[in-house]
């Protein structure tokens, strides 16, 4: 049987290094299979997160040969196995151990986004009517599996570490899903401008490129949110009208 070598990051927040593991590989295997095989046979104490093994839960995010990917959806046949395959944790988040990072910041951020606030039900049984075409666009956003790969590649977070001022692509997608929900009555534009700083994003589209669900993060979510902020706060015509009528 063929073998391949995996260069896996081992260590914790106090330091670490890459370590090579050679293991048997077979047809159809994905990186996660190889990593779990190494864990079971050679490194029982290695920290790896995974759940569904089918690209649906977003647990096994990592950087494979430098590319942010889900380990469960990266087939070995797409990699050059004549060289060691590097597998390392997402570098934007603090390391806990080996391939597991501390992603808890993401869960705190979500709480800062104003929650869904539906209009009153259309019918006495508590139901509403919504057309399929009205929900198509937010159904795209709701495909998100919260793997946080988009957060991992966002330079505002990765390079500039603006964790206390900026919510990152995942949560702009979340905000967009709420803002464009046909039943929602709340507005989040002020937060987007002042608290969540959507303006920091300069649309390099890195997030959209790594999304395993192929959500058009920048074009469909972030840009429309930026437009909403501009419409509300920076529209020159509106500013003029407001000035004339004496409103603030």
């Amino acid at each position, binding site marked *: 049987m063929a073998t391949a070598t995996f260069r896996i990051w081992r260590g*914790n927040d106090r330091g670490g290094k890459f370590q090579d593991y050679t293991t048997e590989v*077979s*047809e*159809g*295997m*994905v990186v996660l299979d190889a990593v779990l095989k190494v*864990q*079971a*046979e050679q490194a*029982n*104490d*290695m*920290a*790896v*997160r*995974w*759940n*569904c*093994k*089918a*690209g*649906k*839960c*977003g*647990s096994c995010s990592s950087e494979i040969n430098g590319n942010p990917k889900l380990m469960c*959806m990266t*087939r070995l046949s797409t990699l050059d196995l004549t060289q060691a395959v590097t597998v390392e944790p997402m570098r934007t988040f603090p390391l*806990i*151990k*080996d391939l*597991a990072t*501390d*992603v*808890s910041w993401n*869960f705190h951020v*979500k*709480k800062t986004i104003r*929650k*869904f606030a*539906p209009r009153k*039900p259309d019918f006495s*049984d*508590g*139901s*509403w*009517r*919504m*057309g*399929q075409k009205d*929900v198509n666009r*937010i*159904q795209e956003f*709701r*495909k*998100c*599996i*919260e793997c946080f790969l988009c957060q991992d590649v966002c330079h505002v977070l990765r390079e500039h570490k603006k964790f206390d001022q900026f919510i990152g692509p995942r949560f702009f997608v979340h905000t967009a899903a*709420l803002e464009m*929900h046909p039943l*929602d009555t709340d507005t989040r534009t002020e937060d987007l401008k002042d608290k969540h700083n959507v303006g920091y994003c300069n649309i390099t589209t890195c997030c959209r490129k790594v999304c395993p669900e192929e959500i058009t993060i920048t074009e469909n979510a972030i840009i429309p949110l930026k437009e909403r902020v501009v419409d509300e706060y920076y529209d020159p015509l509106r500013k003029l009208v407001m000035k004339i009528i004496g409103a603030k």
Partner: protein
Amino acid sequence: MAEYQTHAYDVLVIGAGGSGLRTAIEASAAGARVGVITKSLLGKAHTVMAEGGVAAALGNVDERDNWRVHFSDTMRGGQYINNWRMAELHAKEAPDRVRELEAWGAVFDRTKEGRILQRNFGGHRYPRLAHVGDRTGLEMIRTLQDHGIHQGMEVHMECTVLTLLMDGGRVAGAFGYDRERGHFLLFPAKAVVLATGGIGRAYRITSNSWEYTGDGHALAYHAGATLMDMEFVQFHPTGMVWPPSVQGILVTEGVRGEGGVLRNSHGRRFMFDDIPENYRNQTADNPEEGWRYTQGDKNARRPPELLTRDHVARCIVREIKEGRGSPHGGVYLDISWIKEKLPNSEEHIKRKLPSMYHQFKQLADIDITKEPMEIGPTTHYMMGGVRVDAETQMSSVPGLFAAGECAAGLHGANRLGGNSLSDLLVFGKRAGQYAACFAKENGDIAVDSVQVERAAREALLPFERGQKAGAEGAYQIQHDLQSMMQDLVGIVRKESEMKQALEGIQKLRERASRAGVNGNREFNNGWHTAMDLPNLLSVSEAITRAALEREESRGAHFRDDWPEKNPEYGKFNILVRQGRDGGMQITREPLAEMPHELKQVIEEMK
């Protein structure tokens, strides 16, 4: 003395899949202080994998549907040993629970009139499953998660519970550890709700992730609660079989709901060859009628591919055993054939089954719009679990509740697809409500430090052994258990093999008691596996003993040596509890008498 952090709650919920989150939402709304423990990160539980939909008789697509039809479908699917009161509550309350999700932000697919769209599924007479393409579970868990985090509950991510604590006869909380750092945690609580899901990891081929080690089943059993229906393990008929690394991953029943057919290597649609008597009136007798049913013709009957999961799985096993299987040991599931019927079938399939398209394309190099899939049965769901009161979900231990997959009763001998998602909503809500109520009505509990110290000491033993040469790791033991259960207590069972399995479990238990762990307590998956292992062993023993006791074939439980259904065995459930001597005790519990009105409903729907 062990060091630990303490977090006290009125209601402690163990598990954060659909049922755990629904429980926590309800208990928080009732004013209880609620803590939620999850082995993974929030939102990653197995609910996320549910594809097809949530069953509720909304009647949006077929106005003939109502709770009575849903109730009788559930009872028929469960071979009438379900807890009828749970089946009744479930059928009546599911529509409200689904509409409530919409009020919390869920976005289901729509009918032309703008209502929630419903699809066909195995064993459901009318299109009943509210869905979002084939990612309904993701929609549900995210909706519950996003609603829940604003309700005041505290979530402890990546924590494992080692033991429940008792105060006299009453539950008093739980003791466990944080997986990330390995610190011990004490959770004193007036009420505890188990929402830990299934047991799939007891088998080699499973759709379940590493988490499903029967923790709730084992915690309840060791706390003195009663388990029920443990012989009924659902093998989903369609799991992936190739390549080997994806073996067991689920292929939604929605494929068949949308017109997918099963064929053997001769190209024959074998499901027409074996239609059980009690479903004959409701099943199409030719392919044309079956196709019309999947396209919404109300006068057509459903195709045999949409018979209940237990039956479909057994038919597939028979084809494979008799040499008519596919090259990699499965049979063919084909949705691409609908191109004969629909002009833009490729787009249609991608829209209706997007994640199936994605999954096969990326993991198996198969384009399901053009070619058939190879599939075979996979361990999917546990009908058995903690025996609970139908109204309150409380177990036989005061203050200990269970909801969702780890509770028993609703599904009887076989669960219908889509009924698990409605189960977790209906009974999650009830468990939350009554657990909060129990916490309010009962005084403070006292934590017994002896129990805490014992649990902490036992949890650290593998590290002490790890240093000595020759101590075996937990992975190999778990692997051997999975292979043994797969071979000896799988889809087709017989006495001699199951007796062999009991001996095997005993030997594995001895090996587990000597297992060692290297490294330290920080995010150590080897240690985590060692801690889950005793739960898997307890659950495997319960399954095997209950399966030995049931000398007949019914629902998901099939005995090669007792291939027929025996009406005598339809009169009781099998209970499992810990005996005074510490051994596992098996008893038969007669079914409660069904009220006349419900009997009549079943009679009308025949």
